[in-house]
């Protein structure tokens, strides 16, 4: 087991810079996720940790040890590939035993260790099967067992669930978590699926275009995104381009770019992300944080609007509310009030000042 440090890592393929300015510190025993859209450099980063690519710049350390140029076979990492990469000419047993045989472990010990890990992934009945005779989920378990049996310092998983259907995916998700906790192994998990990332990880690094935008726990990432990319990539969000009118000790007053619609926000780091001061700012609020009032009330951030459409999802109702030129998405839990909401109905909505967050825009304009 080991912690992992990436220090100012860059990886270029010819002219394409796949990863740049990357500094990460992954703690011992942590379940750490690389999250980001396809092509953002997650796999490249993972492969630098596995040793399949060497960084163009920067250092990779396991613990304090510099591993930057160590070949993959000397890193003692267990890797689970997207397509599993099981050896098709071997049985389940032979696949799992491969890493132990390479390490010249005595035959008896190989046997017990393989059986032990196959028991842990619940495949003991399939020991002598050819891997081609297994289902997708079972192949996935073999891949996990094969990576775990060598007792690696680090477990690397590259979109391991993307080839499974929805139901199996849920099952394997908890399976992977269970195994990770059982082995207490430092794990890096790559995915483009935010739900997977939020539900499984101790911490998440959000990537885009080869840069890491934010590192944090799932709650931090969801509640206090550092910029509009992170905010939009994880969950749903309303983003309004705004300018700051004035700020005092307690409150910040902002309005839309044309000066209409005033909003008040708490002046607290939780609500104001002040990274670069040059960027265009946006007001962000999650759709479930917006309140729909039964009656008009006086107060800050209360607006009159009209319901444009209603989408019914069972437990949740999705409204699009038009306020002058703005359209806000509002998610409500389905209680008995919900039948009141019809297309064309006038409502009052409140953007609670403790739910708003001002963030810089890094990925171009919105509404």
């Amino acid at each position, binding site marked *: 087991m080991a912690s992992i440090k990436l220090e100012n890592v860059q990886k270029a393929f010819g002219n394409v810079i796949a990863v740049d300015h990357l500094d990460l510190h992954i703690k011992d025993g942590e379940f750490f996720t690389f999250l980001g859209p396809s092509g953002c450099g997650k796999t490249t980063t993972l492969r630098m940790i596995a040793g*399949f*690519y060497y960084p163009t710049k920067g250092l990779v350390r396991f613990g304090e040890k510099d591993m930057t140029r160590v070949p993959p*076979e000397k890193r003692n990492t267990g890797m689970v*590939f997207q397509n599993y*990469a099981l050896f098709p000419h071997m049985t389940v047993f032979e696949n799992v035993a*491969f*890493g132990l045989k390479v*390490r010249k472990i005595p035959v008896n010990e190989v046997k017990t260790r393989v059986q032990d890990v196959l028991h842990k992934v619940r495949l003991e009945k399939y020991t002598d099967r050819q891997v081609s005779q297994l289902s997708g989920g079972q192949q996935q378990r073999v891949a996990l067992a*094969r990576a775990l049996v060598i007792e690696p310092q680090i477990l690397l998983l590259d979109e391991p669930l993307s080839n499974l259907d929805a139901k199996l995916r849920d099952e394997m998700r908890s399976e992977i978590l269970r195994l990770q906790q059982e082995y207490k192994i430092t794990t890096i998990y790559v995915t483009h699926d935010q739900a997977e990332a939020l539900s499984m990880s101790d911490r998440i690094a959000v990537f885009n275009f080869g840069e890491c935008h934010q590192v944090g726990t799932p709650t931090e990432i969801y509640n206090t995104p550092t910029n509009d990319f992170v905010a939009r990539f994880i969950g749903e969000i309303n983003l309004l381009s705004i300018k700051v009118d004035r700020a005092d000790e307690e409150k910040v007053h902002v309005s839309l770019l044309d000066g209409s619609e005033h909003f008040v926000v708490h002046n607290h780091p939780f609500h104001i992300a002040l990274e670069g001061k040059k960027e265009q700012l946006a007001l962000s609020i999650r759709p479930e944080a917006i309140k729909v009032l039964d009656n008009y009330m006086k107060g800050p951030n209360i607006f009159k609007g009209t319901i444009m459409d209603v989408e019914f999802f069972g437990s949740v109702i999705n409204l699009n509310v038009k306020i002058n030129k703005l359209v806000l998405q509002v998610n409500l839990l389905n209680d008995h009030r919900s039948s009141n909401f019809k297309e064309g109905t006038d409502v009052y909505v409140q953007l609670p000042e403790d739910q708003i967050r001002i963030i810089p825009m890094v990925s171009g304009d919105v509404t």
Partner: protein
Amino acid sequence: MMKNRDNRLTLLLLIPVILVLIAYVLYPSLRTFFESLQKDGSITFGNYQDFFTQASKTNLEALWNSVYISLLSVLASALIGIPLAFVFNRYDFPGRSFFSTAAIMPIVLPSLVGVMAFMFLYGETGLVPNAIKDLFGLEKVPFKIGGISGILVVHAYTMYVYFYMTVSSAIHKIDPSLEEAAYNLGASKSKVFWKVTFPLLTPAIVAASLLVFMISMASFSAPFLLAGGFRVLSLQIYFSKINGDMEIAATQSVILSIVSISFLLFMRWYQNRKDYRMASKGIGAHRSEVKNPFIKWTMVMIGMVGVIILLLPHFTILLLSLVPDGTWTWQTYPTIFNFENYRLLFEDPNILKPLKNSLLLSVIATAGNLVFGVLTSYLLVKRKFVGKSLVDILVMIPWALPATVIGMNLVFAFNEPSIFTFGNILVGTFWILPLAYFIRHIPLIVRSTNAVLEQLDDSIEEASRSLGAKWFYTFRKVILPIIMPGVLSGTLLAFVESVGEFPTSVLLYTISNRPISIEIMNQLRMANMGQAAAYGMIQIVIIAVVLFISNKFFGVKAEQSLS
């Protein structure tokens, strides 16, 4: 940008591959070219000038004949192969699958044996013309093949298979819904054929045409036995070499190579053009059952006759091999049949020698091909290095060059000591033949191995390495076992082709390493038909057994030997 350690490994593997390619592919070709520039001790284009302006015009005539006969061969093969592909892929009738298997039987005949069979069947004293003559009480044989007609018939018989195979697979890939859509839009049957089906098949037909053209340009065995006074370029090279006109042989080789290589380049260009074949997944063409009993049974009849014609050469060889030599002289038909020829073959060490030679030569060449092919293919498919396309081209050269030219290249390169042979002269020794077979079959094995390696996901190798295995261990325990079935099938095909190889053998053999093909030629010269046929039969059996094994155990279809 790649890892140093891996770069070093790539280089280490690359060095032997490049050395072999330079020493045995590039250098011999350059030697021939250099030789063609030698005239009266100076370096000129004089030989080329002579080639085109010579008073007797023999060379020009040979070049023209080669082109002309190749065009006719393309036409004849297309006329047989394309309709057959349609009938077998679009209609279902009793015996269809048997007939379609029989349709590829010409490929189990080594070229020389096939030509010999045609000679016995349809030549001057051939069984068929004579049978017809006797049957109808004619004065003279009604027809006979020889010269251009002989070459053409043999070419059509062996080369229609290329059309049949490529067009069949193209038909198979056409999504039937395309044609159904056209019918649905109100198009008539012939309109659908000419406006939809045929355009979709054009790429396959063009590819097959170019291939057949190249193969007939290079064809050697058929002209060798049947040409009579008819001159073709591949044969002229052989004559020039026999007469000792080495510079002329070199010039002819270069010109023949240029024609072949231009066609190869044209073919590559054509295949790389974006074409509109669609990757619709394996719905496969529907075969319609033939309902009309008259048409159905006519088709079956035609099928039977076709099978008889296709298998007659094999049968003839078998029959003749049972006729003891000296018992069939003035009679129209042989009268005595027994196993004398086979008995001699296995009892007389002198007669057995060529069979042993053939097997030994082919085993050596094929073993070389296996090692070299796997290594080269691994580098080409799985490794990055500068100059890869150059290696790729060098590997393909032996495929583009006519066998006769490869033979001549070796004559020019290794009839004197060279560093590539550690200062030895190879021509006239045992080793020149395995070398020639090896070179001939480099492209076949590399390409068949490429195909399996491309299927192998890179992550398999990476998985092994991340589990702690070094490269060589990974290669032995993971990569090799996975690709072995595919590789072996290519290797077996190379072996089969080596056993039947004639053109390079005839240029390079010595008395002590003479292979079966050469002995067949010798026996024919001595009019020992029976013994020649027995050798031919042995070749056919070896080929059939090997193809059967590779089909049975490696799931290889015999037709893959064609691609």
